[in-house]
């Protein structure tokens, strides 16, 4: 372990008291911090019972008291350096706990309220002529699927070809500027993408135009950079040996890309596209200003307003009508369906990359 013979003999004597850090819990048994937090919980319970009971305050008191207790105890028994280390550990773990609060409460809340109207009618009926209870989001669901499909049809070819250009062909200034502006494009606010699509179509159709295809164009502005980034990463992973082997057999470059590079990377590409769809399927703002809302079925993206799930949820919540509760229930169910779609796509993406991963890694 050590090269010098004199150092180790001197080492343990002088540095043992302060070097407890290396050994971890040499000086303090591992159960001590837990015991401190247990005591803090009891104390917090006492405070809570004496004043007014509140679960949030109880948790806050427990964490604060436990952290303080751990710090002070460690400072007395182990010295200031170890104490600060324990303090930071407590803070870092609590930070993670704080981040879990919104996630858990959000998912719980959406499931609880969304389950109310999660029935067959919601998926089979539109809102045409519906006042009060009943009605569904069939039209909005179909609108979301049609617009997302169109978005995918626009974005994937452009994004994939750009990624191929960047990885296989690109050189010099053009490649650098495309890469840079793709990064910039990732940060375009979704509402600005919507305004762009609106401004573009206004020039052609005149003011006040609302079409499904406008929404697809707006969403494409958001989706293309995501597709390019993920496809670029995946194409870079394809080993150069495969390309060189193909060239050595006299295969032209474009056939090499189509027959060797893309099949090798197909799982990664599919994962990237799925994640990109998940990214845009929940977008509300651009659809709100380009596609609008309707209560009737409309399967034609080139003719008039369409309903989409996020916009449907938004209007059901903000303009619920006379007995508001029915519409608000529908809004929550739409939110639940939306979360299920996004999470489902994420799971599918993970499955694709896991199931087909061995092929790409070879």
């Amino acid at each position, binding site marked *: 372990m050590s090269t010098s013979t004199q150092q180790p003999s001197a080492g343990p004597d002088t540095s043992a008291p302060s070097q407890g850090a290396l050994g971890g819990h040499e000086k303090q048994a591992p159960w001590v911090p837990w015991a401190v937090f247990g005591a803090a919980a009891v104390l917090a319970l006492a405070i809570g019972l004496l004043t007014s009971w509140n679960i949030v305050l109880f948790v806050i008191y427990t964490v604060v008291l436990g952290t303080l207790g751990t710090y002070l105890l460690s400072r007395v028994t182990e010295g200031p350096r170890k104490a600060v280390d324990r303090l930071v550990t407590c803070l870092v773990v609590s930070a993670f706990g704080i981040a879990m609060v919104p996630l858990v409460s*959000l998912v719980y809340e959406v499931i609880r309220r969304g389950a109310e109207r999660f029935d067959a009618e919601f998926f089979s009926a539109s809102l045409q002529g519906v006042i009060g209870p009943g009605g569904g989001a069939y039209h909005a669901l179909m609108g979301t699927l049609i617009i997302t499909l169109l978005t995918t049809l626009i974005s994937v070819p452009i994004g994939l070809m750009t990624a191929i*250009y960047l990885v296989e062909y690109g050189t010099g200034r053009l490649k650098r500027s495309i890469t840079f502006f793709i990064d910039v494009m990732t*940060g375009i606010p979704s509402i*600005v993408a919507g305004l762009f699509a*609106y401004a573009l179509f206004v020039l052609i159709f005149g003011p006040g135009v609302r079409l499904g295809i406008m929404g697809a164009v707006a969403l494409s502005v958001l989706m293309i*950079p995501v597709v390019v980034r993920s496809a670029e990463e995946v194409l870079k992973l394809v080993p150069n040996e495969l390309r060189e082997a193909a060239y050595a057999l006299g295969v032209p470059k*474009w056939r090499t890309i189509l027959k060797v590079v893309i099949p090798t990377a197909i799982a990664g590409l599919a994962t990237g596209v799925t994640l990109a769809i998940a990214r845009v399927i929940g977008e509300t703002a651009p659809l*709100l200003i380009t596609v609008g809302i309707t209560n009737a079925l409309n399967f034609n993206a080139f003719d008039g307003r369409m309903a989409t799930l996020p916009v449907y949820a938004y209007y059901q*919540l903000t303009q619920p009508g006379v007995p508001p509760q029915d519409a608000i229930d529908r809004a929550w169910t739409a939110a639940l369906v939306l979360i299920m779609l996004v999470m489902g796509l994420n799971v599918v993406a993970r499955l694709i990359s896991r199931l087909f991963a061995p092929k790409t890694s070879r």
Partner: protein
Amino acid sequence: MTSTTSAPPAQQPKSRPGDRIFAGTAKGAGILILVILAGVAVFLISESVPALTASADEIPGDGGLASYIGPLIFGTLLSAVIALLVATPLAVAIALFITFYAPRKLAAGLGYVVDLLAAIPSIVYGFWGIFWLAPRLVPFYRWLEENLGFIPFFAGPVSSTGRTMLTIGLVLAVMILPIVSAISREVFSQVPTLHTEAALALGATRWEMIKMAVIPYGKSGVIGGSMLGLGRALGETMAVAIILSGSAAGITWALISSANPQTIAANIALQFPESTGLAVNTLIASGLALFVITLLVNMLARWVVNRRSDFSGAN
């Protein structure tokens, strides 16, 4: 040796038609992206020209374009900065927890759980914020007003619904948490193992190791990541549109009262569907302002992040 390796690429362009078509299409797609981005700028400018040239009393609010957009820009910046101040320390702590504190087997799973926050659509955050978070924050705001009311930020009267600027800041903080912590995590995991192990071998505690080896290495990455988060928060629309009870409050620093400036993005979402004529052009002009602000923030962020990646090759 060098001549033989460089020779095949030199012979390669034998100019097959298939090759030329394919390469041309790929290049065209790349250029198309630049055209789209330029198009975004050009169309936004061309549609906002009527608002830029209109006289002051034609603009909604009768005060001219500057006094219409000014408070909106203020509201946008204020909410985004609150989000940034809340999210950055939290995100760095989470990144540290996942990289250095969590058990190795759990780390990837925990990272995925934090990333789930990014997968939730912004409108669902709006639902959660208005129904779950805002009412629960009201007692806390009351307490703030009673005890810290002398600070202008917490001046009363407290909003009874909780739909305030501070609530928006917190919701936006949750929404940008995943991106900031993902980039911080990536930077922290790139810290050379030699540095961290050397620090530990010298007897540093885990925190001292982080302070000496991790933070100096990852600082610029964290800054870049939080600026990307800032860009995200500036453009966030639906959550703000649903939660914030915005009014024509103008510029105010009070964070917990019911009079709040609206943000640009939320104002567009709220006003656009019912607007016609010059009002639409005014909204597009405000969108142009938002586009320019986010563009600058993002370019700066990318510059910071990329500058760091140039250095990271040195490990």
